[in-house]
């Protein structure tokens, strides 16, 4: 089920009614768990078995880990959890990819090998709930906390529908304590939750699906080169689309959860105002980047194992982070580019004087030319924001392209190496991309150090209400009611 569907409206209305009835807290939690399974099963019922398997195994493995003192046995129970979760993920997400690459490798070695193409359906949200359950068993193994004693609370933590299929990737400490006491949204929380749901749907339905998806889908789907302006428009369209799609989902999830009285962690913090790639990853898909930091980068040694090893660790983390997004070399390249930019940034930060000279030379030009409100003392920050945004767009080409050839062709078009491609986009399509891109940059720049809540709290109520109404009207009029979220495929 997706948030932008009539089914969800009905589902959520019934659930809210049940959650606010005078049932016992245990009954309410059972309602929530049942509703979460229903939420998932309405996509593809059989895959709920995987969710149950993961939940049951991790619950009992964590218990065994905690009561066992013997190191070998503890490792063995942890390994059972890791093998099961990563095994499921590998089979469903990477089975076809591995087989395809194995076939290519055999053929390149001169060994005739032809494998039947496996017909594997990727269970929605498997990458997300696998990470959720993994963090639990690993933390119990590290004795960060005791295993959860209530199977109901643990199952609800894993399955809680707002985060189940596309995050935020919650940690046990984020959610399980909230299930211990009866929870019901206050009037204020409920209103704010509904507003966040509206905002998320506006980002997803109106901006991502309504205004941008057609442009990026059209150009990235073409088998021939296009005019440079069209190539840039498509990449900028995707840049806006993926942010509005994914942050829209997270905002909906946080809002829906708040309506039930539970708080979910923040997942986006105006990433297109990031100064550099390390700042970007503090603002983009925050729950994934912190997960990768805590369970991959730091265990690899982080930045404590020497300068060279730090760069290696960064690259490994980002390459695997890229692969997490999908079974394709393009995602690996996307992760690799992010890793590379992080390493370069780290190198530059070690020598700040050189970086400063280039910035001051461009400041005067920007001060006169920019459309973004800017003061003299933050021009260099703005320049670095724009440079980061530019480089991010280069990386998005690999993320969006269906194959490596398309990505290279798009880059050649963007940078004017191929200029003879046809013009494909109409003026209204390009205007929509331009308006959203400038709008996003201005919004992210102004909101870098602020929050949505702070912004709307500071508004007069009539302005807040008018904006809320306009968003709702545009959602209704856009009518793209059942489009799936991009991150569902991950």
């Amino acid at each position, binding site marked *: 089920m997706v948030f932008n569907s*009539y089914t969800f409206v009905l589902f959520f209305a019934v659930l809210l009614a049940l959650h606010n009835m005078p049932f016992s807290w245990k009954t309410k939690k059972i309602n929530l768990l049942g509703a979460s399974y229903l939420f998932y099963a309405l996509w593809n019922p059989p895959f709920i078995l995987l969710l149950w398997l993961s939940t049951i195994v991790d619950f009992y493995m964590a218990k065994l880990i905690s009561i066992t003192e013997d190191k070998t046995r503890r490792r063995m129970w942890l390994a059972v959890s890791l093998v099961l979760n990563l095994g499921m993920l590998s089979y469903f997400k990477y089975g076809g990819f591995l087989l395809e690459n194995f076939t290519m490798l055999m053929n390149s070695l001169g060994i005739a090998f032809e494998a039947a193409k496996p017909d594997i359906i990727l269970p929605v949200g498997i990458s997300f709930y696998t990470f959720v359950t993994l963090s639990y068993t690993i933390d119990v193994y590290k004795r960060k906390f005791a295993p959860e004693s209530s199977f109901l609370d643990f199952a609800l933590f894993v399955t809680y529908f707002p985060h189940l299929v596309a995050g935020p990737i919650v940690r046990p400490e984020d959610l399980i304590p909230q299930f211990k006491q009866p929870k019901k949204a206050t009037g204020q929380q409920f209103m704010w939750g*509904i507003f966040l749901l509206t905002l998320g749907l506006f980002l997803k339905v109106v901006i991502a699906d309504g205004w941008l998806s057609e442009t990026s889908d059209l150009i990235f789907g073409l088998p021939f080169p296009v005019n440079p302006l069209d190539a840039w428009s498509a990449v900028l369209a995707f840049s806006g689309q993926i942010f509005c799609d994914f942050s829209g989902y997270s905002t909906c999830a946080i809002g829906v959860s708040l309506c039930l009285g539970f708080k979910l962690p923040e997942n986006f913090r105006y990433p297109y105002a990031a100064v550099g790639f390390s700042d970007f990853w503090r603002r983009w898909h925050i729950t994934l980047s912190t997960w990768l930091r805590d369970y991959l980068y730091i265990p690899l040694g982080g930045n404590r194992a020497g300068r060279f090893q730090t760069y290696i660790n960064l690259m490994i983390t980002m390459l695997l982070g890229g692969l997490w997004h999908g079974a394709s070399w393009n995602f690996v390249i996307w992760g690799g580019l992010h890793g590379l930019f992080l390493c370069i940034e780290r190198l530059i930060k070690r020598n700040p004087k050189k970086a400063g000279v280039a910035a001051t030379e461009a400041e005067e030009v920007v001060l006169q030319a920019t459309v973004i409100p800017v003061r003299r003392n933050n021009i260099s920050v703005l320049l670095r924001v724009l440079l980061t945004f530019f480089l991010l767009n280069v990386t998005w080409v690999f993320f969006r392209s269906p194959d490596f050839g398309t990505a290279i062709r798009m880059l050649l078009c963007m940078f004017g190496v191929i200029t003879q491609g046809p*013009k494909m986009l109409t003026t209204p399509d390009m205007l929509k991309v331009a308006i959203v891109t400038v709008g996003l940059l201005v919004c992210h720049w102004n909101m870098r150090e602020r929050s949505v809540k702070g912004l709307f*709290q500071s508004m007069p109520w009539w302005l807040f209400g008018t904006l*809320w109404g306009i968003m709702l009207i545009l959602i209704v009029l*856009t009518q793209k009611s059942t489009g799936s979220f991009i991150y569902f495929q991950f």
Partner: protein
Amino acid sequence: MKKTNLKAACLGGALVVLFLIGWESYLRQSGFICSYNDDESLWAATRRNIYQATPAGPVIVGTSRAKFDIDLQTWEGITGKAPVQLAIVGTTPRPVLQDLASDPNFKGTLILDVMEPLFFQPNGSFAEVSATKRLAYYPKWSLSQQASFVINRQLEDHLLFLDEEKFSVNALIKRLPIASRPGVFVFPVFPLNLEYGLPNRQTSFTDSFLTDTAAQAEVKGVWARMGLTSTKRGVGGDTLTNIIRSVAKSVDQIRARGGQVVFVRFPSSGEVWNAEQQAYPRELYWERLLKETGVTGIHFADYPELSRYKCPEWSHLSPADAKSFTKDLTRIIETKTKWSLQNAVSQNIP
């Protein structure tokens, strides 16, 4: 804060209600009528009914011509069973034919609309890719989407502004008079009063369009821009041979399971018909298709009762003409194929 949020929510809600009442009233005042979105969900819901298809209630595969020209209600009145309308506007029917041919449970009867400019589009063309995309949706049509479809249907029964193709934000933006760069193909927009769709996927011209000669001229202009009045010869050589072979293969698959197929060439008129005759000479395309597939074909030009119509915009029949056309078509199909269509519902003819 609490009061502020509540006041803002009330204002926002009031604005939405007032706007939607105003918008719906305006559209009704302007003479528009309710039309159902002919989207992936409606197609998928219709696709589920193919397994009961018989000569009396066949599956129809094709283009917009099949959707306008076969009056489903008239057909049902004659045979006692409604056809399953799977035609998709602006696409080649071959992908849908292949889909039905590769479905081992489909053993029914098929009417295939042969509109040459779309039927003979090569693989990879826009018309072929569009049909393939529509097909890809069906196996992934989740329970949640099915439930949303049912709810949406109830809303569409009453709310005119839910017509996505005409009144969604994107559709309205596309109508803005903004010029594009030279060389860009801008997909033409049709008049808002052109047609309406029913839940059974029947499409018909509106009364207002039939009396609006300016709108009819506008659509004729659209056909010209889309190449329907071009006399340029269609595909030939290996491409044509491969297309016909793939159709023959699909037909054979359906027949091997006891199913039946008939080709129908629906009427066109004016410049569109003139162009179609030159771009797709009958002996090179239609006759060859019949010969190499061994399928019975009904070409409107061969029957005075089918060729007496004048399409208002050169390509589709008016609702009144579609009724008499359907009546004659069922009789001709029965005569040519020897299938018994009249009240065949209880006979369940294989």
